[in-house]
């Protein structure tokens, strides 16, 4: 009986030593996954995920503190991409963080703006132009639609408008009659 215990003990000890040596030689530092997660996030810096921006949310996901379905602007495609990267199952968007909305742009109603610069400080990407006691306006191209400027505005003169569809950003639609029997393939009138 003793022979068995000793034999297995020796075998376990030897392999333990070998593994210890291999662990030292094959150490891995840093974790490039955070960069990859940050690249998938929509960078609206809106904080709807409960973190102060996209980068902190990415770090939280990498560290496992946050779930992958807390980003409404990223929407369904964002969650699927994150699930694919991290090898997890895609989950529906967490309603507590807000619902997925079409892309919006903030617009300042210039009749009511009093030039208090509170929205300028709140905007995470400096997309609002203006100075103290001067008229403010939103740079439509830069605005990510994060809605952080709406709350601080004392006169509530900022509202969100969907991005208008022009010939430049019009897109062909998904063919309707996929494999159904309806004869023709109707092009959905814009």
């Amino acid at each position, binding site marked *: 009986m003793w*022979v*068995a215990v000793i*034999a*297995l003990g020796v*075998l*376990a000890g030897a*392999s333990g030593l*070998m*593994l210890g040596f*291999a*662990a030292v030689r*094959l*150490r*891995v530092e840093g*974790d*490039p*996954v955070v960069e990859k997660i940050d690249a998938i996030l929509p960078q609206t810096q809106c904080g709807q995920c409960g973190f102060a921006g996209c980068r902190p949310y990415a770090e939280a996901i990498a560290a496992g503190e946050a779930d992958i379905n807390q980003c409404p602007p990223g929407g369904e495609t964002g969650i699927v991409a994150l699930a*694919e*990267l*991290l*090898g*997890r199952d895609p989950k529906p968007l967490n309603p507590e963080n807000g619902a997925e909305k079409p892309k919006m742009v903030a617009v300042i109603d210039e009749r009511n703006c009093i030039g208090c610069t509170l929205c300028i400080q709140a905007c995470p990407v400096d997309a609002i132009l203006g100075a103290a006691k001067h008229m403010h306006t939103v740079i439509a191209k830069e605005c990510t639609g994060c809605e952080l400027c709406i709350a601080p505005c004392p006169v509530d003169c900022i509202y969100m408008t969907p991005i208008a569809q022009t010939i430049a950003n019009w897109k062909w639609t998904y063919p309707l009659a996929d*494999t159904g029997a309806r004869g023709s393939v109707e092009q959905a009138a814009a």
Partner: protein
Amino acid sequence: MINEYALILLSTILVNNYVLVKFLGLCPFMGVSRKLETAMGMGLATTFVLTLSSICAYLTDHYLLIPLGLEYLRTIAFILVIAVVVQFTEMVVHKTSPVLYQALGIYLPLITTNCAVLAAALLNVQARHDFIASALYGFGAAIGFSLVMVLFAAMRERIVVADVPVHFRGPAITMITAGLMSLAFMGFAGLVRG
């Protein structure tokens, strides 16, 4: 001698395929074959582990268990050897390609519990293979496993998008497909013993 080894390879890869004829290693077969890249990564990792552990199992059995008459400890010793090899593989994979390490996730350490690995070791002993034969046997089993998994992954990537009835989507259609695949493999029945 040569065609005896060739026979071992042909038998383990096609005829007595570990997954579709012997029904071993089904959990990673089902779990990791969702995407082709991860299936290939898993195939590679399993080939590395299976070949190495077949060899180590043979050495442990030949030079440690039989001289000391401890044949009854065979299963525990083999599991220990396999666990060591898997741990080593996990470190290598984590070092060489973190993306694959991230994608495989839990299934990499799970190779330890993969019944194909232990089965290969035990069957080697049972068939009294010599050193080269057991290495080839392990290698052939792993190649068979990886080949079928890669083919299955490519099929699943096509089926996941097919117009499958709602109730059969996901694991249901995957199981049916695996069943039909083993139906096809039954064509080899009776080809080669072992």
